[in-house]
């Protein structure tokens, strides 16, 4: 880098504006999440050509199209698997995975669990609106019991998944919850999640103003209680985090539930990646190594 011309161009919010404007419904919680991601990237000054936003399918999964970074708009539920492959092939990239609760906890549930236990170094932001939006309003894995939707018109009889407890149980090394209605707080959590070296899970309440009339901004706002405001709370204490994750009702905690930094990220645990990212490595097997492979068979 010493010989190259340093052009200290600052990354600005304008640089991160996507080629098209978001087509979410007016008032959708996802606008707040997009804005917080853009703010976090500007505050961290990460070159936008080194950022990849990867999503599945759904309203919130349209996000990569609305931000000027590299992006992949993949298949329903598969963003984490795609992101894992991409990160392992070039671990110098900053990888953000964005999607919804149906995408992540329903169809993608299996990948969610395994990506956490692998501690892949990426930030996974779930815009959790407790409903299927793009398919026009069906029950999601986080819909509350009793909630009436087009697919369960007499009320949901299945218990919802608790994403925070699940993430803690699966071994996620950074677990947090944010609220789209609190930009400043959310931006801070996104920054922490990006900086964390390992799998960061950020569940964000992102109200669906069109199909979810139960979990609205008005419903969330008075319930949001920041963990940072509790001086007794210790985010390095897994048991405490698990207990807090079970709270749901008049008070719902947001903020960083848990973080540990003693587990190496997947790419750091594999010696093949020690010298450089895969994509920068010579694709040829050295001839003496190749000869050895053949001699084994003779």
């Amino acid at each position, binding site marked *: 880098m010493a010989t190259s011309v340093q052009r200290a161009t600052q990354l600005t919010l304008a640089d991160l504006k996507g080629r098209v404007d978001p087509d979410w419904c007016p008032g959708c919680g996802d606008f707040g999440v997009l804005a917080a991601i853009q703010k976090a990237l500007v505050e961290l000054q990460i070159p936008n*050509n080194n950022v990849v936003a990867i999503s599945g399918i759904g309203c919130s999964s349209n996000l990569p*199209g609305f931000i000027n970074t590299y*992006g*992949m708009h993949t298949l329903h539920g598969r963003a984490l698997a795609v992101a894992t492959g991409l990160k392992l092939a070039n671990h110098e990239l900053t990888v953000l995975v964005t999607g919804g609760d149906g995408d992540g906890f329903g169809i993608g549930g299996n990948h969610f669990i395994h990506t956490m236990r692998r501690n892949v170094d990426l930030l996974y932001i779930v815009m959790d609106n407790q409903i299927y939006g793009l398919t026009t309003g069906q029950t999601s894995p986080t819909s509350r019991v009793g909630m009436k939707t087009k697919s369960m018109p007499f009320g949901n009889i299945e218990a919802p998944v608790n994403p925070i407890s699940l993430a803690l149980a699966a071994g996620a090394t950074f677990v947090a919850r944010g609220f789209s209605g609190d930009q400043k707080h959310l931006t801070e959590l996104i920054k922490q999640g990006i900086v964390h070296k390992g799998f960061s899970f950020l569940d964000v309440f992102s109200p669906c103003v069109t199909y979810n009339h139960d979990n609205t901004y008005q419903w969330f706002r008075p319930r949001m209680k920041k963990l940072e405001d509790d001086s007794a709370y210790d985010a390095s204490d897994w048991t405490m985090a698990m207990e807090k994750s079970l709270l749901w009702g008049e008070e719902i905690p947001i903020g960083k539930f848990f973080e540990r930094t003693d587990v190496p990220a997947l790419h750091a645990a594999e010696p093949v990646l020690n010298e450089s990212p895969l994509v920068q490595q010579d694709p040829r097997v050295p001839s003496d190594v190749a000869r050895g492979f053949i001699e084994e068979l003779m």
Partner: protein
Amino acid sequence: MKQTFAVAIGGAAGQGVATPGDIFAKIFSRRGLSLNAYNAYQSIIRGGHTLLTIRTGPEPVTNMGDRIDLLIPLNQDTMDRHLKLLTSGAACIYNADTIKAGAAADGVQLCPLPVSELADITRNKVAQNTLAIGAGLHMMGIAFAALEEVLREQFKKKGDAVVAENVGVARAGYDYAAAHFTAFPNPLPKTEKRYAVLSGNIAMAMGGAAAGVKFYCAYPMSPSTGVLHWMATHARKAGIMVRQVEDEIGVINMTIGAAHAGVRSMCATSGGGFALMSEGLGMSAMIETPVVVIDCQRAGPSTGVPTKTEQGDLWQMLGAAFGDYPRLIAAPLDIADCFKLIPEMFNLVDRFQCPGLVLCDLLLSEGRLGVDPKDLDFSPVIDRGELILPLDGNGANGNDGSAAMATNGGYKRYKFTESGISPRAVPGVPGHIHTVATDEHMEDGVLISDEFTNPIKRRAMMEKRMRKVTGIEAAVPPSMLRGPRDAEVTLIGWGSTKGVIEEACEQLNDKGISANQLQIRWLVPLHGEAILDLLKGARHTIIVENNYSGQFARYLRSETSFVPDGNIRKYDGEPFMPHHIVEAVKEQLAGKTKLSVPVHEIMV
């Protein structure tokens, strides 16, 4: 007829069938003999029945052949199942303490070994196996030194005492045979050739390494797991990131993710796993990120017969994922081709930015073949196509130090071109920021699936992708006819049946029925016109394939309207033997039937 010799070793799983097999294979290949090994086994870890057939000879041996020259049953069950298959000139070596021979055909030599007299069976649990190897080698006319060398290598790690003990037991078997059994009339020759002995799975894994694969992942599934095992064992030496994934859906998506970052990326599975991958293949096609997926076919449908072979996945390949998109499908012709095909396939998928499917099967995946080491070329041409990697000319990251890379210089990931191929920049490259999408998109990647829906743009992008098909067709050579053009019968096969059909043709020619062969390697593109041209003058055409419905015959008809005079099909899980094809051809030429389904005589 060429000189070959087949030894079959049978027993229960866990009884040690594999080790004598490996020892024979090493000894044969080090004598400069070609060999082919096929293991008929069951989906059971301990018990059941497994029969390993190793066929060898001075000229190329491509299949298991028709006869067993030497049978080594390690248990009564094997004796009972297979002694009756032996014909005059064959021999059977067995442990006389535990196994009773049944009725054998005239001219079959029964060779009972008094195992407890020759070895201390309380110390050496596999003494019967080692004695039989020693006895067998004497009968094949091979000097004891060859066996001693292999046993020393085999037991080196266990110390001198174990080596001496095993060499002693083998020697006792060798000497006992010299004194009591009649040697085979033609001793196994020696040649100056040298062979590497490997399975199709190892060949495909090594082919991947040679092609520059940097990322491989898989979920274990027979019969493809051997690819994962080789990759995992050799990953660190070869510089390959190898992962075992939670399911095949994860596998294909991870493979695509790695490929999207710019490395060659591969995965392997069998039919059931492939079914789970098909949505992912559509993504590879839509975002134009190339991957190579290997399907090692086994007998289906569903869980089917996991340890048995079939060519039953062709239509799954042809129809994998919804919608129309360019793809490549090739079936390797033999184990050496399993190696060679992978770098070829990668060059094509990199050039045309689409998925490439390798349609292998259990017969090749788990079979073993002696291959000329020169055919395992680790310096093949690597053509990455129009790829822009995050490197500058000096190999350093091209980042100029600025955080903002908003101006893209008009880069369009899906630029309309005459060839349909658009230069592919991967994430991390400055000045080429874009988002790829599985939704239909415009040249710059922006979706046209929602508010920008537009039939004209959709059509244009569809045609851009499909234009690549023309290039693909030109890049892949058509099949060739092997044998005299005016032959009485033309046998058409695809993939792994190459060797057995070749030998059937030789046998037919020996019997005065001239035969030629059209073996298909590239299924997509098929080159239907070229096939019709080759078959225009054919006198009697028969399609040979390892499935029930004639999947290739139906495909060929759908592409060319060609209907053969007859079909030979086998769907019992076991591969063809040359005489199956020869007898079927004879009955079809005699006008007895148009569809032959040979019966597999070996009960495995």
